């Protein structure tokens, strides 16, 4: 089997695609390197190219397998002394290996880009296996399409197009997205073992189906009846695929991890505590913490800020899921700003039901101004141009200018806004 596999690999039409697959992979990964430096994020990032890689691998595998329709090939395969699944296995293996090598190029890039600056550990296998399972599944789908139709006309388009639709429509089922959002590799979450097993089973079931069933198609008078084992193996493959497909919608791909016993915290007051895997961000959040400790009087700053999931039984906390370091730090600063607001004015805004709309708007606007200013102060500069949106009715540029004014002016600003908050919020909740 080894010689057949190597012959297939050496001569596979897909081998010309390898540079393209690798290029697509690296282009996706290199376009935004905010993930570099944190192992779970780097691992999740390696999943993103699979949406494009999978259909290319499926189309190529279908093209390769459709050679079974070439004149004379069918008789050659029917005169083989090898068990029926072996030639298919050798060919599918070559297509899958090429697809996986293309995928692993991105994984290698992720490791290479992160190794110099990442914290303890290495790439997380859960994410990598999700991507590998999806790539192998696409190769199997392509092989089935090519072998069953024997047509180089429709099989590549059907397989490539079909996988494209699957990848786009079912990306969350496959684990490539979570609830329509990117799987960001947040260390607070990990791939659920059961979910991973289901997706691996899907890949294995499709592979078993791909190598056993196609030669059974077109069974008609004039062929030896295949042995029961081949039917059984094919039936098992189909059953496994069906079971996995039925289970997948019922499962969340990610599950929360237990809080770390030794989070990575800054040596500042207040301190900021991160997941050890996000050690890469420690230097940047230290700067935020120092600035949070230098806020004008009148604001109550919590003793500690936590990344999501770091504090047990506390699902709040900021998230480092936004891409570039700069963008991330802005959103951390915003989250810290809201924490400071809650700590100072109460966790829950409480105001009289008889409050007029004008008064409500004033209170809202005052709160938003304070949040934006706090974010700017903690961040150490105005809102980055790459971050869009913000509190409605608040001019980030104006707030940026305010944050550069003398401390006395800013302290006066704080007092003014605090007065507005105090005026309208329930005295029972005020903690100033």
């Amino acid at each position, binding site marked *: 089997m080894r010689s057949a596999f190597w*012959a297939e690999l050496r001569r596979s039409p897909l081998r010309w695609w390898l540079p393209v697959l690798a290029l697509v992979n690296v282009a996706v990964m290199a376009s935004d390197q905010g993930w570099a430096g944190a192992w779970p994020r780097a691992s999740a990032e390696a999943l993103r190219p699979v949406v494009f890689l999978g259909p290319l691998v499926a189309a190529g595998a279908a093209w390769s397998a459709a050679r079974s329709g070439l004149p004379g090939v069918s*008789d*050659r395969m029917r*005169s083989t*002394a090898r068990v029926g699944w072996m030639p298919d296995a050798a060919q599918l293996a070559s297509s899958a290996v090429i697809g996986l090598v293309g995928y692993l190029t991105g994984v290698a890039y992720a490791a290479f880009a992160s190794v110099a600056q990442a914290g303890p550990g290495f790439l997380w296998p859960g994410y990598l296996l999700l991507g590998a399972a999806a790539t192998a599944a696409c190769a199997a789908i392509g092989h089935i399409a090519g072998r069953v139709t024997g047509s180089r006309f429709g099989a590549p388009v059907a397989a490539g197009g079909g996988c494209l639709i699957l990848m786009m429509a079912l990306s969350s089922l496959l684990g490539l997205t979570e609830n329509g959002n990117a799987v960001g590799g947040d260390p607070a979450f990990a791939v659920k073992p059961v979910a991973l097993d289901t997706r691996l089973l899907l890949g294995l079931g499709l592979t078993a189906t791909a190598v056993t069933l196609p030669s059974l198609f077109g069974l008609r008078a004039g062929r030896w009846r295949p042995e029961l084992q081949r039917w059984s193996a094919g039936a098992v493959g189909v059953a496994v695929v069906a079971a996995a497909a039925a289970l997948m919608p019922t499962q969340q791909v990610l599950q929360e991890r237990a809080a770390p016993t030794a989070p990575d915290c800054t040596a500042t007051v207040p301190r900021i505590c991160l997941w050890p895997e996000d050690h890469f961000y420690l230097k940047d959040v230290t700067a935020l913490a120092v600035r949070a400790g230098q806020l004008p009087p009148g604001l109550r700053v919590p003793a500690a800020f936590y990344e999501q999931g770091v504090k047990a039984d506390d699902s709040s906390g900021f998230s480092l899921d936004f891409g570039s370091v700069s963008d991330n730090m802005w959103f951390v600063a915003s989250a810290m700003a809201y924490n400071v607001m809650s700590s100072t004015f109460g966790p829950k805004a409480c105001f009289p039901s008889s409050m007029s709309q004008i008064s409500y708007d004033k209170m809202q606007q005052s709160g938003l101004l304070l949040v934006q200013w706090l974010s700017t102060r903690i961040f150490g500069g105005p809102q980055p141009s790459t971050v869009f949106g913000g509190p409605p009715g608040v001019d980030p540029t104006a707030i940026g200018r305010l944050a550069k004014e003398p401390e006395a002016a800013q302290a006066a600003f704080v007092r003014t806004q605090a007065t507005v908050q105090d005026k309208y919020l329930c005295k029972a909740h005020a903690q100033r």
Partner: protein
Amino acid sequence: MDNNTSAERVGDHGRRAVEARALSLGYGRRLVIKDLDFEAVPGVVWLLGPNGAGKTTLLRTLATVSPPRGGTLKILGNVVSGERSARRARSGIGYLPQRFGFYPNFSVYDFVRYCAWLRGVAERGAHQAALAAIGAVGLERQAGTTMRRLSGGMAQRAGIAAAIVGRPPLLLLDEPTVGLDPAQRLEFRSLISSLDGTTVVLSTHLVEDVRAVGGTVVVMNDGRAVFRGSGEELKAAAGPGWPGENALEQGYMNVIGTGQANR
């Protein structure tokens, strides 16, 4: 290189490589061959016959590609009655179909080596066996050339190499000399003649190949074997007055009942 693995695997088959009794073969609802008895012992057996006589159908069945509709088939001493026994028999059969297919991207070496693997030739020694087969058909210099770049004749020689790789005890060749130039046909004849101990069953339209190599001749017509004997006996069927080379053709035409060849 003498690879006995195939023969050992299929066991001691005595003298007869092929024993078929009352074979009925066909496609769909059409019965092409009915109640045919056929035997082949080590040596050369030529299948002659007009188009549609059933030669290819017979060879495909002997190669266990298609199961017979009726009758019994024994290949190399083993009864072939299902897929498992068919697969076991194939390890001793080298088969060249009339329209043989190949993967266009494969080189000649890849193709021959892959076919050796398909036939169950052991990995150890397969490399040497492939090289020997390629050398036997004179394609050493094209060993690294992809199949799609070969001329028709070279591709045919590659197919012959794929059939003889590993020296199977039974060789089934369907019109093997198609596309070969005269010099290559001479080489092919000497190759066939040199395969001692091998049973070679070939179909051909070229009577001069029969004349040159000798062996047993089976003439098929309309799904029946209408003649079985040596080349001399076929010549004798021409009747008196047919000297030299035309006698074989006339004998053939007499046995299939189409009248006289040109003198």
